């Protein structure tokens, strides 16, 4: 029998199981950013958490792999690896969680200091950049870097912009940013080399709110341009623990 061959865009039928020291392993479905690869990661995450094998501590879904952390003194590594391999066989990618968030964004001006520069680079008007950025449906591939920082796929390829050569030491909380072909919803203030198109009052992470984390891997996100005049009201609402983002039907 021929061995399984990698199929399109680097998706493999049998994922690789890679050791990450004695207390973790990584189940790798591919090496690229791809919704089907990410969908398999999320589907395996669901399946594993449902099975809850002895010693399992925590799982971290990423773009292309599932990190599985466990207590090495309570876990039979070979059994865990066998379980993961079996669960991964014929796994259907999880298209999305079925949750779609509409996130209000004030674009440009002091809220999006790079909007005009990005428009100029692509020979577009700021309005066109806003329309294209707000006209897409994004997929949350993973949450990482900082609490609640959402990495999105689905950016209009005509907006892909190489990262700044000089990263900024600080960008504001809730920055709506793009870097290369990726987009993101920023969370707390952080250093970044990405371009700031706008800002949302939505807190993707608010420690005192229930839920503390709004977005999860596999969620969908759309952006709704809002006028500067609405910022204060929305920001106050978010400050008081409001979600502000609206959950809508896909």
């Amino acid at each position, binding site marked *: 029998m021929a061995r399984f061959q990698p199929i399109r865009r680097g998706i493999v039928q049998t994922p690789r199981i890679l050791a990450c020291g*004695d207390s973790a392993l990584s189940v790798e479905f591919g*090496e690229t950013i791809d919704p089907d690869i990410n969908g398999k990661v999320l589907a395996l995450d669901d399946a594993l958490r449902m099975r809850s094998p002895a010693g399992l501590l925590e799982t971290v879904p*990423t773009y*292309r792999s*599932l990190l599985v952390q466990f207590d090495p003194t309570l876990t039979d590594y070979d059994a865990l690896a066998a379980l993961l391999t079996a669960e991964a066989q014929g796994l259907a990618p999880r298209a999305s969680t079925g949750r779609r968030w509409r996130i209000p964004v004030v674009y440009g001006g002091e809220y999006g200091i790079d909007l005009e520069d990005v428009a100029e680079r692509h020979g577009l008007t700021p309005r066109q950049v806003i329309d294209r950025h707000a006209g897409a449906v994004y997929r949350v591939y993973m949450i*990482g*870097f900082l609490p609640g920082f959402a*990495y999105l796929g689905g950016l209009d390829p005509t907006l892909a912009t190489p990262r700044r050569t000089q990263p900024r030491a600080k960008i504001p909380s809730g920055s709506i940013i793009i870097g290369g072909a990726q987009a993101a919803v920023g969370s707390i203030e952080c250093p970044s080399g990405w371009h700031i198109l706008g800002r949302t009052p939505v807190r993707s992470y608010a420690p005192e709110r229930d839920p503390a984390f709004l977005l999860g891997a596999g969620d969908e996100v759309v952006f709704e341009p809002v006028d500067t005049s609405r910022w204060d009201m929305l920001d106050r609402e978010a400050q008081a623990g409001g979600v502000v983002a609206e959950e809508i039907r896909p």
Partner: protein
Amino acid sequence: MIDLVVKACGPMTSLQDRGRHGYQRFGVSPSGAMDARSLAAANILVGNPPEIAAIEFVNLGGTFTCSGGDLRIAVVGADCSLSIDGVQVAPNTAALLREGQEAQVGHARTGTFAYLAIAGGFAVEPQLGSLSFHLRSRLGGLDGAPLRPGDRLSCKAEAQPGELMHLPLEAPPTDAPIRVMLGPQDDYFTPAAIRTLLEGEFTVSPQADRMGFQLTGPQIEHAKGFNIVSDGIVTGHIQVPGNGQPIVLMRDRQTAGGYPKIATIISADLDRFAQLRPGTSVRFKAVEREEAVTAARQMKDWISSLPTALVPVRFDLTTEHLLSVNLIGGAVDALAPRTPETAAS
């Protein structure tokens, strides 16, 4: 309510416990004590469970008082001294800090991280299940901040302080290689690069903090570039960016990253690695899973065995008590903890 009052401390002094677990999928770093063994020992000395929050010192010590009652305290790690009103407490020995007295924790003499535990622990509200302070996300600690002079930490202290104990502790070996397991991305490196990691000598650079330790040494060559699509990170991962100089990711690491990781320090050797100071040389040794798991089990058993290793201190090492029994020159009981004179040698 008894408060521990911070009179002076270094800028990176913070509360740390076993860490914040279960939120890495939301981008939250686990944080936690850099030297979990020392945290455990300090806690056990004052009758606490091994993993609750203590004050972590980074190189520099601090000065503390208490108000509202007396506190049983202990300091373990980095060979830091502890004195109460100027009287030295024997190493790895609990002491009674009375209201009005001043406890002084000395700077690190070996290693970097030390822990001050108080009996009962701190009555500080956890964030996402942990008191561990994380600088980047401003989580944990005292209102999302490290400790600063003037801070008052409420304590869940006992009404009647219990017996003072000593814990005979052996310093971990300082020259043994740090054990690693290869992977997860060892296939991004040439066989020569893996030999370089395992046979070369590296030095801990001054760029070493709770997030990661930059090492300097021979170049580690990539076989197929150094850009990977970000994947998950664990504490102890050795990642190699484009300059070929490895970075070991430590407790305050990010949850995902985009450099290939050539190897991972085994869990049992993380605490020992964390205590290597900038300028110290380090060698790595590859081991198989079986050895790593055995070492993890031994470490767990060692921590579980700590309460049975405690030895009661026969007298209260305060100035007034020592003066009253005229024992300031030193103890005579072979079972008693080392006296300040021998401790200093």
